[in-house]
């Protein structure tokens, strides 16, 4: 019984890894061999070169970096400030505001594509990188995550900072931020990988290569061919898009897994 279970699970793991192996296999072989399963030792990087030249992937990469880290930086600021307030201060209207922020956890921004498109149009932010980023600047998830961590910081440390004459912002920066470093790393990894993958929203907002992120660029590149005609190139392009994420994942595997774990524990 136990053996059967283990055998099945090893088999499942094999099944799980096949799509990635097949993608790499298709991407590094001459394109005329892409549609056959035949085994040969041909190896080529031509597909990567072709894909890189046929579409402005360098631009897409820059855009994705800009968008992903732009969102993260603003999120860190807004979430840190709000998290400190919720963790440490008692103010008028605290409960109401807390519930309002819960609404964002309940209704993900991703389902508001149509109304938010209209908001963006009214703000004249269509087809801009800022337009892709701005709805995500406030993050209920980040606020809750950091608030949990800030609450466990001993209050005496804040008293010490106070005695040394630190103002409120200085206290947050010198006491709370350093102690919450693992939480920041966790939040950062989740945020970056989430927005790196984001597709539908940037697709709707952008209509020029200048502002498109990798995901949108990739889908346009894939759709520009007749089905199956340029598999090898599309595979190479797909691999280029996922490579930084996979690389980061393999290097920071432990951090990634514990970050995603935290993304669930409330």
């Amino acid at each position, binding site marked *: 019984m136990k053996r059967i279970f*283990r055998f099945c699970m090893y088999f499942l793991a094999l099944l799980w*890894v096949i799509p*990635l192996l097949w993608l790499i296999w298709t991407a590094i072989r001459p394109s005329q061999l892409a549609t056959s*399963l035949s085994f040969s030792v041909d190896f080529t990087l031509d597909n990567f070169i072709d894909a890189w030249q046929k579409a402005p992937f360098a631009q897409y990469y820059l855009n994705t970096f800009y968008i992903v880290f732009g969102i993260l930086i603003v999120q860190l600021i807004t979430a840190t400030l709000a998290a400190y307030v919720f963790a440490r201060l008692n103010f*008028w209207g605290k409960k109401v505001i807390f519930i309002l922020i819960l609404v964002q956890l309940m209704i993900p921004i991703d389902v508001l594509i149509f109304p938010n498109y209209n908001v963006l149009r009214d703000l004249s932010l269509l087809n801009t990188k800022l337009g892709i980023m701005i709805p995500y600047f406030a*993050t209920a998830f980040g606020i809750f995550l950091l608030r949990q961590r800030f609450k466990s910081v001993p209050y005496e440390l804040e008293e010490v900072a106070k005695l040394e004459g630190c103002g409120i912002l200085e206290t947050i920066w010198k006491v709370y931020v350093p102690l919450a470093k693992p939480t920041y790393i966790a939040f950062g990894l989740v945020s970056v990988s989430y927005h790196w993958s984001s597709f539908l929203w940037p697709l709707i907002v952008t209509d020029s290569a200048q502002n498109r992120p990798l995901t949108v660029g990739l*889908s346009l590149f894939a759709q520009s061919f007749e089905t199956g005609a340029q598999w090898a190139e599309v595979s190479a392009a*797909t691999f280029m898009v996922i490579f930084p994420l996979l690389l980061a994942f393999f290097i920071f595997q432990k951090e990634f*897994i514990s970050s995603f774990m935290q993304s669930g524990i409330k």
Partner: protein
Amino acid sequence: MKNGWRNSTFKVNFYSWLFLLPSLIFLTIFTFYPILKTIYQSFFQSMQGEHDSVFIGLDNYKYLMEDEVFWEVIKNNIWYALGTVPTSIILAMMMACFVNAKIRAKSWIRTFFFYPTVIPTIAIANIWLFIYTPGYGLINHILSWFGIGSVNFLGQSETVMAAMIVMIVWKQAGYFMIFYLAGLQNIPTNLYEVAKIEGTSAWNTFKTITFPLLMPTTLFVFIISLTNAFKLVDHIIVMTQGGPNNASNLLLYYIYQVAFRFWDKGLASALTVIMLMIMVIIAVIQFFSLDRKIHYS
């Protein structure tokens, strides 16, 4: 003293609101206002580009109730949820139990299960498009070894939903495994020691200890996977465009079509309101299941 601000109620309130302001501004512009606006707009008939909109009451909703595509989309979405949620949960639980045990190549296995989580859905769609392609796709290659002719998985309405479900399960099961791994670590090991001394079989140990104690995790994973069933539509744009004959069309994709292909503002708003109602229902389920959990512990 310089830091006397904590003693002043006014100053505490001032700083609190000041620090919350950035978050509240963005939340208002991109969550609260759009929600209210879209409810309001759903009572009007207006096409993009036209400035006059006519108040038509519930006509947009009445239209949807008689719209065959709408019901097809709702039906598809229910099947999509029924196909992805339980399967992902069961597989995730099995993966976690397996990876948590003393096995060979443990960290590699865990990596294999988890890596699809970090790949964008759109890239996954490209990969699986090649897997499902008729004629020379990976699955059809394998089928041909057994003498089975080419199957167009994404091109026929009988198979397209199943094909999408398999792909989504592949994408998310490893993500849910992580939560179960965390859940397993919270189970006190002495429970297993007792079970061992009493000679309980592996299956019975799972049934009486592991499964019940993982219940809070299961509820949590259930909620995320249910939300995902309504949120994950990126792949449709690359793989099927909702076809053939709307057989793979899902609610969020239909909103996208109505809003940005047919440019019908009123109808897109009404559809968004229905989506919001579904999100609220899921949140209510979560609220009550969390409540239960407190009673248990």
